[in-house]
């Protein structure tokens, strides 16, 4: 009888595996597990066995029934999945275009500005903004610019009928912050600046700058180097080197020009860097004690550094944009190229 059961179970399993439709499953269930199935028949024949063997064999029948039930269930599931898949496959072409939300794009100058802000925020700087329409004091006097300095000319600086002027650099914000807040100060001030330059591939009367200012006890040129190096790496990649070399600005002492190793040729020399291997990034230096005195900070206690960067210049370098004027055309064929640039 046990052999009979085993044979039956094997056959049934085979038949179940051959089921192709939900209907096959229905039939198989009736055939193997239904009232008139052989399994039920075996139950009826339990009486033929000696009493002591009955429970054990009853158990065997139940196990076989359980196995067949689970085989049927899993085969049924397979058949359903196959049907679902087959139905979806009819006339389905996954290569047809998707229905996109059609994102716009940020202006590349905005992208660079936000990236720079992000780098400095990450270094613990704060962002400070100030007015673009400024007075001579904040734009020149407080920055230690001599009265007869050429930058004060109408040829260099835009003046308004009200007697005010358009700031020529965001250093004005440094002065405003130092007037209102005590050190330690760690700020950057991004924003629009104005110089009376005719638009050409590398000039624009309206441009954006980021100034950084750090004032605290014990700030040295070494901190300037650190910050600059961190910034250059964050913006242009870990391989980029930075350096400072002597220069002159009225509001810093010592003053410096900052360079980064050419992002185009990695310092080997090329068209972009005019074969020097270095790219000029902007001016820097240690805040002149005269500037500190102007805003009431004791230069004996505090020292600080400042530097300024042109945002358009960085954008042009990063994206290989050859002419600054392109940035102001607002051609969406240009703008659309920056859809994938995140802020």
């Amino acid at each position, binding site marked *: 009888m046990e052999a009979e059961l085993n044979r039956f179970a094997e056959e049934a399993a085979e038949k179940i595996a051959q089921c192709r439709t939900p209907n096959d499953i229905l039939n198989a269930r009736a055939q193997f597990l239904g009232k008139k199935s052989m399994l039920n028949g075996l139950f009826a024949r339990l009486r033929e066995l000696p009493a002591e063997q009955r429970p054990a064999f009853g158990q065997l029948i139940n196990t076989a029934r359980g196995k067949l039930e689970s085989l049927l269930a899993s085969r049924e599931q397979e058949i359903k999945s196959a049907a679902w898949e087959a139905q979806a496959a009819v006339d389905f072409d996954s290569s047809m275009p998707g229905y996109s939300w059609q994102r716009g794009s940020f202006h590349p*100058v905005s992208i660079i500005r936000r990236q720079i802000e992000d780098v400095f925020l990450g270094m613990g700087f704060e962002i400070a903004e100030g007015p673009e329409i400024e007075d001579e004091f904040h734009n020149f006097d407080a920055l230690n610019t001599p009265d007869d300095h050429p930058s004060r000319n109408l040829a260099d600086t835009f003046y308004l009928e009200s007697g005010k002027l358009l700031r020529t650099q965001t250093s004005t914000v440094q002065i405003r912050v130092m007037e209102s807040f005590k050190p*330690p100060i760690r700020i950057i001030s991004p924003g629009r600046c104005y110089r009376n330059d005719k638009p050409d591939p590398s000039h624009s009367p309206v441009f954006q700058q980021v100034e950084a200012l750090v004032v605290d006890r014990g700030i040295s040129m070494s901190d300037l180097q650190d910050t600059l190096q961190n910034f250059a790496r964050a913006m242009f990649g870990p391989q980029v080197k930075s350096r400072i070399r002597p220069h002159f600005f009225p509001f810093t002492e010592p003053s410096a020009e900052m360079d980064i190793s050419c992002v185009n040729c990695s310092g080997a020399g090329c068209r972009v860097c005019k074969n020097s291997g270095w790219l000029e990034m902007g001016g820097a230096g240690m805040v002149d004690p005269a500037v500190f005195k102007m805003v009431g900070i004791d230069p004996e206690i505090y020292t600080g550094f400042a530097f300024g960067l042109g945002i358009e210049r960085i954008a042009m370098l990063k994206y290989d944009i050859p002419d600054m004027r392109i940035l102001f055309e*607002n051609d969406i064929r240009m703008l659309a190229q920056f859809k994938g640039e995140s802020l």
Partner: protein
Amino acid sequence: MIISRNWLAKYVPLEMDDDALNQALTFSGIEVEAIDHIPALPPEVVTARIISAEKLEDSEHLTLCMVDIGDGSEPRQVVCGAPNCSAGMVSVLALPGAVLGELTIKSARLRGVESHGMLCSERELGISEDHAGIIRLPEDTPLGKSVNELYELPDTIFEVEITPNRPDLLGYEGIARDLSAALNLPLYIKEPQPVPGVDSDAIGLSLSIVEPQLCPRYTARLLADIKLADSPLWLKTALIKSGMRPINNVVDITNYVMLETGHPLHAFDYDLLQGETEDAAHPSIIVRRAKDKEKFMALDGNEYELDGQDLVIADGKNAGALAGVIGGKQTAISDATKRVVLESAAFQPQTVRRSSYNHKVSTDSSYRFERHQSPEMAARTSLRATQLLVELAGAMVIGDLYDAYPQPVQRWMVALRKSRISLLIGYEMAEAKVKEYLGNLGLEYVKDGAWQEELLHDASEIKECDISSKCEAAMWFAIPPKRVDLLREVDLIEELARLDGYHKVPVKTPPSIIMDKHAYRIRNQVLDYLVGIGFYETLNYSFNDPAQLQLLGIDPQENTHKLINPQSGNQALMRISLLPQLLDNLRYNLNHGERNLKLMELARLYPADQNVEPLHCTALVTGQLRAGHWQNPGRQINFFDIKGMVTGLLELLDLPGTKMEPLAKSWLSQTRNLAWFIEDKPVAQIGALQPAIADKFGIDLSQLRQELWVIELDVHLLTEISRNRKRTFVPLPRFPSVSRDLSFVVANHISWEHIYRLVKGVDEYLISNVEIFDEYRGKQVPEGLRSLSLRLILQDKEKTLTDNRIDALVDSVIKELAEECKIQLR
């Protein structure tokens, strides 16, 4: 851990109030999780003896008692419901007039019998949660006495969290030592005095440690002549206030000493311990690993199946305790106990943790041993408990302490550099202060010497540090053995910083206030949102062309900053509108063949009459909503698309329900025009650009057959208005909402907004929302009318809405609409 202020005050004078004590605990690193004040009881609550107690007729559980309060007056008749109420018992009676919390005791009749007062349980007095029966006081308690004295009331119970690195704080003495060190207060911790034992041959013990790694020290003290009884009230009170149940004097003393010292103890019934063989002279205590599948019946009534990882304290035959975790039932103290083995030991924390975790049994003992108790404390703790057992249980000490301590912990010394302290905590601490703080913690200053990282065990090993040798000067401190957490220089510095107060650590950089983070966030949000819905950001010079302003109908002379030296006439003004250049940008791109354009600029304006340069955003939209797609043919952008763009932004900025109405602009349509007002200021506007204006900018809309939509956002105002916005969570409705639809015909001139307010106004509370889901004008609707379909969302926050209420509500809505708008239901 639960600590009573009064108990703590026995070791350290606590002059400060509870708040100050809370502060002091918190700042010395003991987190206070809850404070519970137990108030003093009124004078009407006194000790009393129940002279007689008889079951009250007709009642299952009431007892009629005659109670004596010892003032010579007649006994008082009191009805009591407690099961343990019996004649002769001394308990606590609250006399009429006593106020217990919210309950005022009055004379009353219960089942027709007068009752003049209430016999109290501990819970009724607010002492503990015990409400099983009335309080049973020792028979010799003086009667008529205020209960405050007996229970040391008032008191304050602090529930504190001890961090796992501070096993020394797991007892009152440790906390007191820390407070005394932090607050520079005297410390009253007495060293227990040796109790001489009586020699006896009749009683002895065979003690062995099989696993010295897992049990570095085991001490056992034999005590005879134990008079097992209830503990005195002060001891009971102390335990109750610390959250433990009194059991009997022997068990209570082990618990009391554990709470006091932090070091757990255990007591075995000596006479239930077996020897290794039948004829052994003495019973055994063997510290060994459990046998695999060894059965152990614990005090909690559960049987545990142990394995070879568990450490047990066994007698000659069976496991008598799961080491450091829980005692066994077989050898437990019982009423019959006469002789006791008092265990005071130290166990490897990992072993205790593992057994506790594996068998899911956590006890006050395992809690402490898991956190590491020093073997050095075992003997002292044993002595303290012995003292109390002699005092309170009449115990006789037999012989000397059995002390298995194969490898005594060597005293260790740590070097501390002064320079390192200031480097780590940021300020200088005077040497005297350092020595004082550490001295208060029980550290002993040994001498100055050369710094080294490694611990030393002998003062003679400390090297001299003179100027010539290359060394760093350090102070060497010997650590009290119970401070198992002090092993490195930095551990000592932590103690110093903690005791001196973290508030003394100077803030190097004052909190910054320079950056306007809110403005920064709003600016980015606006830009991100617009780019996200398809806008291209443009960048233009900050100038306006006076001629272009005039084309828009704006007077270029008014409210503008004029440049003295512009590069050209069309850059003569500082910008007061972003629109002209955006129109230029649009034309430029149309000329390049683009048809669908969404352009925007986010920039400052420079109106002469304001002293800020307000940030504005202007956007232009024309063409299809989304470019045509093979599945979804495109459609032209309409007014409601634009309106939705602004609504979405205001939602993002969390600026809700604003007033909306058209605002005339010389360049916009008068009808397809809408402005949003917040606090009566226009913050956003949309509208269709007049074709004539577009034409002046070289854009031929009729030829394009497109509308040109303008969005203007005053980002500066949006920033200021949203500045102090705070979101608070509104609890979710617990009852389902119901919706009902209404369709009706209404005159065209009646606005949706008017209808919305009307409907909502019927019941602002129950009508949670009104949505419009259809508008129809056409054949079936007469000229000048439109058909609207509304969905009312109804919800009551308190209960489920019944059909009756819903119908009544809908009827009121229809009535209101019929009267005000002359609607006709469809």
